[in-house]
């Protein structure tokens, strides 16, 4: 790895030959790695189909890659995927925004009032250890079968993550930084506008990728517990009707949706961090 390059560099004058050879080897290993990656994906799927075809496992438990693919394609064609994904993403996004705003406001409150933090921070820690998804049935009875009970659950889940992210972020805004600004004559408001809030935004952004999975997961779980729409409803109604292919296909949709959002955010992150210092 990098250590070998470091040790080689001062000893041998880097002639063209060894460098080219190592580059060729690098490309070769890359190709091998990619072939292996594809095999790791394709071979189990093939074996899965084979096991079902040969009757080694029941279709009730395993469905089959073909059946799942067929169901997925049906859903693509009749618009089910777009519609149900839309419901779930709507709940996740609104819930996320509410959770971020409430969590960030609480964090600001806790950093400005130290007594409050002393009393309630340990309690926030305890609540953070409690499985908040357990609130889903309560929220369902309270807010009904529609999207608001799902939004509320997403809010509660996202709130804590972002509260701790912002709170720790604000605490880490170095005292030195704020002192520099204050010595230049900045008021308390200036410190917030020019030092604290920018760093809060950075912390929120870094917790965004974690929050996406949490938000979508919370929305889907809330839909498991009771809903008439959404990806979670699609999956759980499949399970209730013992339509195994529906369950697998629904999970596949969740995986694809989250993977797309995650890679988009990763791209955004990369282009943004190039600017930051």
């Amino acid at each position, binding site marked *: 790895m990098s250590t070998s390059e470091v040790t080689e560099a001062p000893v041998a004058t880097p002639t063209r030959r060894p460098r080219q050879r190592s580059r060729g080897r690098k490309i070769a290993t890359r190709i091998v790695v990619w072939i292996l990656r594809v095999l*790791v994906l394709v071979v189990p799927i093939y074996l899965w189909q084979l096991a079902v075809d040969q009757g080694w496992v029941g279709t009730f438990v395993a469905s089959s890659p073909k059946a799942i693919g067929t169901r997925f394609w049906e859903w693509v064609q009749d618009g089910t995927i777009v519609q149900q994904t839309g419901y779930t993403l709507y709940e996740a996004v609104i819930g996320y925004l509410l959770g971020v705003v409430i969590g960030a406001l609480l964090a600001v409150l806790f950093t400005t009032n130290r007594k409050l933090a002393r*009393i309630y921070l340990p309690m926030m820690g305890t609540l953070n250890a409690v499985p908040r998804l357990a609130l889903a049935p309560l929220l369902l009875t309270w807010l009904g079968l529609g999207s608001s009970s799902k939004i509320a659950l997403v809010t509660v889940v996202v709130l804590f993550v972002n509260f701790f992210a912002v709170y720790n972020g604000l605490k880490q805004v170095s005292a030195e930084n704020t002192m520099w600004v204050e010595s230049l004559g900045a008021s308390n408001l200036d410190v917030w506008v020019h030092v604290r809030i920018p760093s809060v935004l950075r912390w929120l952004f870094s917790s965004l990728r974690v929050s996406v999975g949490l938000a979508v997961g919370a929305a889907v*779980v809330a839909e*498991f517990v009771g809903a008439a729409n959404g990806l979670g409803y699609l999956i759980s109604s499949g399970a209730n009707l013992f339509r195994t292919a529906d369950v697998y296909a629904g999970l596949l949709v969740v995986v694809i949706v989250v993977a797309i959002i995650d890679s988009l955010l990763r791209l955004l992150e990369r282009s943004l961090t190039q600017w930051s210092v």
Partner: protein
Amino acid sequence: MATATMTTGAQATSRRGIRSWVWPWQLVSVVVAIALWALAVQTGIAPRSAFSTPTVVAQWLGGWLTDGTAWTDIKATLFAALGGYVIGIVAGLLAASLFAFVPGVAAVLEPYMSLLNSIPLIVIAPLFLLVLGIGVASKLALAAIIVFFLAFFSLYNGFRSVDRNLINHARVLGAGPIRLATVVYLPAVLSWVLTTMRVGIGFAFIGVVVGEFVGGNQGIGVEINLGQQLDKADQTVGGIVALIVIAAVLDWLIAKIESRFAQWQVF
């Protein structure tokens, strides 16, 4: 701010003194919250059908605790959570070692692992219900798989963050693989293991409770969900209260263990 440095100094000297005024406030806050709950239901701000009332919930909790169902429920939930927790951590440790020490494994499998890591694995609950049945196995498996990914990523990062100079020095001094593992890797990874242990117990509980929501015959999650389906708000809220108490006690226990071991931390 100047106060920031001052309070940290004061904190170190008079921690006991601060604690003595924090405790009563926390207690008062809990009491006030319960009173507000009762008041909100009384005045109709919060619907009784969803929130019940503190006294009715207390009655449900009393009945649940005395008629023996509490024990079977708590046993089922704890068994699945702790079983999945242990399996997940051990499997995560093994997989992380495999990725860290067997060349090529990480290169091939890393994209899949990071894809799976971005997915909220909890959504797999209905599938486990179909495949593993309504009993404890599906909950245990759900807890195990969630904890597994948490432990795997945390420990894999831990292994990778070990200072290479330290390893080379130990090698030069004649350390074999076993000695390297016990003297360099284990102490370095210990802090990662401890963090994972604390976060993991919460993850395991989430897995089990959601598994019980989706389908189960005993457990605290089953009580909560049944309360919703039967329109018995006291049962839903009572179950949630029981869950909060159990999770808080477990978190406290693990924090105790963590602070014990954290004193050993060398690197």
